């Protein structure tokens, strides 16, 4: 069973001065799975990825990537994985082909094998026709595709993708999500970090939720949703200041959690059909008018809210 693990993380710790960036993170990812690390900015996702890439040395703990220890076998780890960093890390004054050739050489590819693989990757990322243009002239989405292409050159067993969809247009985002699924279908293991709940929900076999450097929950989507006890999330917009009614609404029967976010009241309820009429009655009593209602079935956002008392976008 152990042989099927692509990533095995054991009690990783990392601090920068007094800032405890990662505290006792552990998780496992089977071969051919997509594992998403979900959490807000500053949760410790990138620090964790950096340690798993051998860019940072953990203060404590260890991890094995395809059986190679990040502490004692950095070269083995680096050979087994491809990294797609959060920022575009390419040479803008070189062409896409020159970039891929250079990075291929850094992964030990040479000669005809390198040329063939560069052509293959250019086909995969759909940039064969524009391969001889300098990357600096590409759109943001095209750069992202080359950024991913670099990590695929040496056909790694494991690929890390650190927030690859940040700051790009919806079409490019869709292309990247599709390519992640395609990588999984090719048998690659993907460790994917994001603070977009929908991406984690759509892509992953397993999700790890991080906050303040800790892994606060880990499991499949279904397992995580069970943590909130099947709660439904209701977001309401009112004609009055939501803080004025918040305290009263927390006492309404069926409301299990209430908070104010971005001028809206966010409620976690067991049964929305029962609670909604009570909310309208309470609003009428308080001379408030409900101007919009958004009902969401249990999801990872609700899980995060349930576990931390904050929305993921905070």
């Amino acid at each position, binding site marked *: 069973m152990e042989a099927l693990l692509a990533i095995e993380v054991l009690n990783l710790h990392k601090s920068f001065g007094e800032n405890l960036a990662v505290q006792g993170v552990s998780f496992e990812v089977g071969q051919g799975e997509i594992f998403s690390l979900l959490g807000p900015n500053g949760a410790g996702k990138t620090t964790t990825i950096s340690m798993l*890439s*051998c*860019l940072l040395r953990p203060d404590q703990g260890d991890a094995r990537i395809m059986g190679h220890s990040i502490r004692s076998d950095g*070269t083995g780890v*680096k*050979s087994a*994985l491809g*990294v797609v*960093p959060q*920022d*575009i*890390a*390419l*040479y*803008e*004054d*070189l062409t896409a082909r*020159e970039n891929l050739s*250079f*990075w291929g*050489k*850094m*992964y*030990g590819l040479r000669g005809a094998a390198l040329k063939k693989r560069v052509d293959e990757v250019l086909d995969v990322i759909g940039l064969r026709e524009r391969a001889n243009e300098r990357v600096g002239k590409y759109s943001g989405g095209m750069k992202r595709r080359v950024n991913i292409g*670099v990590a695929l050159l040496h056909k790694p067993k494991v690929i890390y993708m650190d927030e690859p969809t940040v700051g790009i247009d919806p079409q490019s985002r869709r292309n990247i999500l599709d390519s992640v699924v395609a990588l999984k279908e090719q048998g690659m293991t993907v460790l994917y970090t994001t603070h977009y709940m929908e991406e984690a929900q759509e892509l992953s076999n397993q999700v790890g939720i991080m906050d303040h450097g800790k892994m606060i929950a880990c499991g499949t989507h279904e397992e995580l949703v069970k943590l909130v006890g099947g709660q439904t999330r209701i977001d309401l917009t009112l004609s009055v200041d939501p803080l004025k009614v918040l305290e009263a609404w927390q006492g309404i029967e069926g409301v299990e959690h209430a908070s104010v976010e971005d001028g809206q009241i966010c409620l976690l309820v067991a049964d929305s059909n029962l609670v909604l009429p009570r909310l309208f009655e309470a609003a009428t009593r308080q001379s408030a008018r409900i101007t919009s209602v958004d009902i969401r079935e249990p999801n990872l956002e609700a899980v995060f809210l349930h576990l931390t008392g904050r929305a993921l976008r905070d």
Partner: protein
Amino acid sequence: MKAFDIAFKDMTRSFRSFFAVVFMFVVPLMVTGMFYLMFGNIAQNGGFDLPRTAVVIANLDEGGPEFQVNPKNIPGGREARTMGDLVVSILESEDLADLVEVSFAADAKSARAAVDTQQAQVALIIPPDFSEQFADIEEGQAVIEFYQDPTLTIGPAVMRSILDRFMDGMGGVKIAVNVFLEDADLEDYAQTGILVEQYLDDSLAQSEDAEAELLEVRAPASAPQSQDESKQNLLLTIIGPIMGGMMVFYAFYTGASTAQSILKEEEERTLPRLFTTPTPQATILTGKLLSVFLTVLVQVTVLLIAARLFFGIQWGGLASVVLAAAGIVLSASSFGIFVNSFMKDTKQSGVLFGGVLTVTGMMGMIKIFAMNSPIAKQMGDTISLLVPQGWAIRGLMQSMQGEPVGVVLVTTLAALAWSAAFFAIGVWRFNRRYV
């Protein structure tokens, strides 16, 4: 192999940068070209034409023992009854007519006044006992007062060069006569005047082309040149060091700029990405440093060849040039690595290029721009050696002046010592940072 891949990639990036290429190749050649046009007056005349130096002479020499130099050996074929006449005859000769414009003053005071009022650039005051002192073989000291406009450099320097040459020749004559008298019998003393004339004739006869002989700077092994070539040589004594200075200044600029790519890659996030590949970090750093050396090497090689082709600058013998170029390349590269290792990020490059490189570069080149002012030259010699640029320029100048390879080698070794120290500190600091 991966180190060379990294170096080649960095060089490709450098040479694709328009500004880098302009600063590496175009600016040094352009600045030199401007000096070439300025001093060579090429745009107007199609040839070299140094402005004539106005010289006022107060020849007060009352003569000494009777002698007559063979007129055929005096430029212009005139008679010279005193040593003062001889100096005047030489300066008035046709050979020097393009360089010197002679006028006369009745006394020393008038001569100095002519310089003070800028009617002349130089006053030569030949004292009444000039010939007598020259003839006093044992204790005499023949001295010409040289009075110049302190704001001028090139004209007075040309005049000083002519007079130095003349006085050296006369000094040689005195030594020869002295030696003769030490061994001569009493009756031979009567022959002294004839001997003096004979040596004067010989000394003057050695300088058939006074202007060319007096002004030419050439490698000892080089072939004799025509008058036109000699004029060109004078131009090159000005242009050559300037080109050399520009080359060294911009080589150091390139060294610093290329070494900055380490910091730039860190900011572009490509350096951390390189560290995620199975390439040892020491190899990555080696590749980055290699690119600095190779880029400066290409720049210096191209500039040496281009300056030879465009301006006809003679850099010296092959072995000397190779040594001097090695000194430039190594010191420029290592200095760039050293300085960058103290920088936190590329935002500090303004301080680097505007401050450190400019100040040290000017210190290194001070010698070149002070070459016609003896005091400044002496100071410049000392100051320039406080910075690596000074040693790099020194090696190149030695090569241009035809110094023996051994002399250039010593300077190159000194530059290497600087380089080794800079390189060691720079690499140590970068290693501490990344590896």
